[in-house]
C-alpha cells in the first residue's frame, strides 16, 4: 500500500522508504495481533476459540455483567484519581525545573528520569517495605506517637493509587516541563506590566502555555494506568482488582481467551474514543478562547 502512494502525493520516495520499516514493524507486531485479538473476541459463549464457525457477541454480553462493569468503573476511577494527583504533584515540579538555571535543569531532569533505570517490579516491591504494617511510614507514625497501632496501608486502594502516582511522575513532568520551558519568559513580564498580579499571571499566562504539555502528560499517564495490572497486582488486594488484572487472568490461569479478548478490545475502543475526543477538546487555543473569562 505505501509503495503506491508517493506517486500521487508528488513523489518523495525517500520518505516512503524510510517510513517503511516502522510501518512494517507496527503492522506485524501491533496491528495484526490487535486484529487477531478482536477476532477472537467474537467467539461464541464458552472458553474455546471458535470464531469462524459461529461469530457472536456472547463474550461482549458477558462483559456487560455488573461485576465486570464495576471493575471497569473502578479502573477508570483509579486512573483518573492517580492522573489528577500526579498532575498536581508534577506541575509545581515541572514549573520549578523550568524556572531553574539551565545547568540545574539538566540535573533535575536527570533525577526525574532516575527511577526509570530500575525495573518497575523492584520499585513496586520496595513500596511493600515502605507501606507495610511494619514499614517505614508506620514506624515513623508510631515513633511520633501519631498512631498507636500500625495503619493498614498496603493492599488498599490508597497503596494502588500511590503506586500509580509514583510510576507516572516521570511521564508527567517532562511534557509539562517542555511546554513551560518553551514559553517566552517575557510573557510573564508583559502580563505583570499590563497590571496582572502573580496569581493572575499564573492563571492567564502560565496555565494556558502549559496546556499542550498537560494534555500530553495526562494521556501518557491515564492510558497506561487504565490498563495496568502489575501495580494493583503487587500493591493491591482483592477489592482493588482492575480491568487489567481481569484480562491478565483470562489469558493466564483463567484460560478464557475469548472473554479476555473481548475485555481487551472494549478497553482499546474506550481509550481510542476517549483520547480522540480529549485531544480534540483540549486543542490549545480552543481552551484558552475568548470565553475563558467574562
Amino acid at each position, binding site marked *: 500500500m505505501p509503495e503506491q502512494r508517493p506517486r500521487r502525493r508528488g513523489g518523495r520516495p525517500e520518505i516512503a522508504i524510510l517510513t517503511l520499516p516502522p510501518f512494517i514493524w507496527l503492522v506485524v507486531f501491533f496491528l495484526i495481533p490487535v486484529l487477531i485479538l478482536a477476532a477472537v473476541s467474537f467467539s461464541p459463549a464458552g472458553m474455546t476459540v471458535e470464531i469462524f464457525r459461529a461469530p457472536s457477541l456472547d463474550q461482549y454480553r458477558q462483559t456487560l455483567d455488573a461485576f465486570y462493569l464495576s471493575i471497569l468503573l473502578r479502573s477508570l476511577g483509579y486512573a483518573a484519581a492517580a492522573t489528577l494527583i500526579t498532575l498536581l504533584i508534577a506541575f509545581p515540579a515541572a514549573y520549578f525545573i523550568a524556572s531553574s538555571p539551565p545547568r540545574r535543569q539538566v540535573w533535575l531532569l536527570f533525577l526525574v528520569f532516575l527511577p526509570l533505570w530500575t525495573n518497575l517490579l523492584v520499585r513496586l516491591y520496595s513500596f511493600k517495605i515502605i507501606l507495610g504494617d511494619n514499614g517505614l511510614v508506620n514506624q515513623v507514625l508510631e515513633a511520633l506517637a501519631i498512631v498507636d497501632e500500625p495503619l493498614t496501608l498496603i493492599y488498599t486502594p490508597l497503596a494502588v493509587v500511590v503506586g500509580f502516582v509514583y510510576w507516572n511522575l516521570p511521564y508527567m513532568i517532562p511534557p509539562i516541563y517542555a511546554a513551560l520551558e518553551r514559553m517566552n519568559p*517575557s*510573557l510573564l513580564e508583559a502580563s*505583570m*506590566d*499590563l497590571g496582572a498580579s502573580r496569581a*493572575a499571571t499564573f492563571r492567564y499566562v502560565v496555565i494556558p502555555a502549559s496546556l499542550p504539555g498537560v494534555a500530553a502528560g495526562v494521556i501518557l499517564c491515564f492510558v497506561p494506568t487504565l490498563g495496568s495490572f502489575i501495580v494493583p497486582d503487587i500493591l493491591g488486594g482483592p477489592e482493588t482488582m482492575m480491568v487489567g488484572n481481569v484480562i491478565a487472568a483470562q489469558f493466564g490461569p483463567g484460560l478464557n481467551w475469548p472473554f479476555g479478548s473481548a475485555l481487551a478490545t472494549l478497553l482499546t475502543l474506550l481509550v481510542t474514543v476517549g483520547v480522540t475526543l480529549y485531544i480534540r477538546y483540549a486543542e490549545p*487555543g480552543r481552551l484558552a478562547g475568548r470565553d*475563558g473569562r467574562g
Partner: protein
Amino acid sequence: MAGAQALINRHPLPMLELKTISKRYGDVAVVQPLDLKIEEGEFFCILGPSGCGKTTLLRMIAGFDRPTAGRILLDGVDITAVPPNRRDVNTVFQNYALFPHYQVFDNVAYGLMVRKTPAAETHERVMAALQLVGLSGFEHRLPAQLSGGQQQRVALARALINRPRLLLLDEPLSALDRKTGEQMRGELADLQAKSGITFVFVTHNQAEALSLASRVAVMNQGVFEQCSTPAELYQRPRTRFVGDFVGSMNFFQGVVTEVGADRLGVELLGQSRIERRGASDFRPGEPVVFGLRPEQLRFSLIEPKDFENGLFGQVERTLFLGEATQLAVRLSNGERIEVKVPNYLMLEDKVMGLEPNEQVWVNWSKGSGIVLHA
C-alpha cells in the same frame, strides 16, 4: 507661549524623575549613577549601542529590575519599590511578547480584563485601540497569523489601551524589515501626537532616535554622554563618542593655537592652521580632537580660499550609497578622511568627474567642524 508657560507652572514636577539611579550585577556596573527628568508629553529617546545599559534603565522604569541605588519618581511619587503591575507605566517589548494562545482581541483586552473592566466597555475600548493602530477586523487572529508589523501594532494597542502615564518602548522597530520599520516610525510619531502619552523609546538606531524624539539621551557604558534635542546632538556633539555614534565623523588630533572672543585657532596634521568661529573654554597649547562630518566636506581641484580650510589627498575608494557617494581620501600624512557627496553632483557615474587615485583638495567652511577636549 504664555499658555505653555502657565502649563509648566501648573506642573512644577517633572513627570518622570530618576535620581542618581544605578544598577550593578556583582562587580559589573551596568548603569552608573545618573539623573534624568522627563516632562509630560515628551517623546524621549535613549540611544546607545548594545550593552550600554539602556534596556536595563528601561526595565528599572518599568519595574522589572530594582535599581541598586537611587530613586524613581513618577508624578513626584516614589515608585522605586512599586511592582510593575501597580505602576502606571506600560511597555512595548522588543519581541512584542504577545500572548500566543490568545487572539488579538484578548491580547489587547488583557490589561482591562485583569482589572475586571465591564465587558461592554472592554469591547468598545479594544475596538477603538485596534482602529487607532489600523488593525480593525483582525481581532480574531492569533499572533502567529500576523506579520511582524501587525504584531508590533497589536503590542502598541495592548499597551496604549490602558492609557498609561508613560509608554516604554524597547527597540520596537528593530525586528522589522527596513521598509516596514520606516513606515512604523511615521505611525509611531502620529500615535504619540494623537494619544498625547509620554513615550520613552530605547534604540540603537540613530536614525530612529533623530527622527522621532523630542529629546535624545546618548548612553555609553552605563552613563549619559549627552542629553539634548536631535539637532543639537547632531550639530554639537559634546563627546567623541556622540559624534561618532550619531551620524559619523572624521577625527583628527590637534593643538589649540589661538583663543579669541569669537574665534578658535587649531593646528592639525602639522600642516594647516584651522580656524573656527565661536567662543570656547579652550586654552592655547591644549591638545584637542577636531571632528568633521563627511557631509560637511567638499571636493575641490584648487586650494581653499580664505573662508575655507582644506586638506590635500588622493581618492582611495568610493562607495555608492544611493542618495550619496562616500569617498575615502588618503591624506598626505597617511591619515584617511571620509567624504560624503550628494549624488546630484554626479557626472556620468563619477562624483564631480573624479577618477580613482586623483589628487584633490578636501575643503570645509571655517565655521563647520567641532573641537572637543582631548
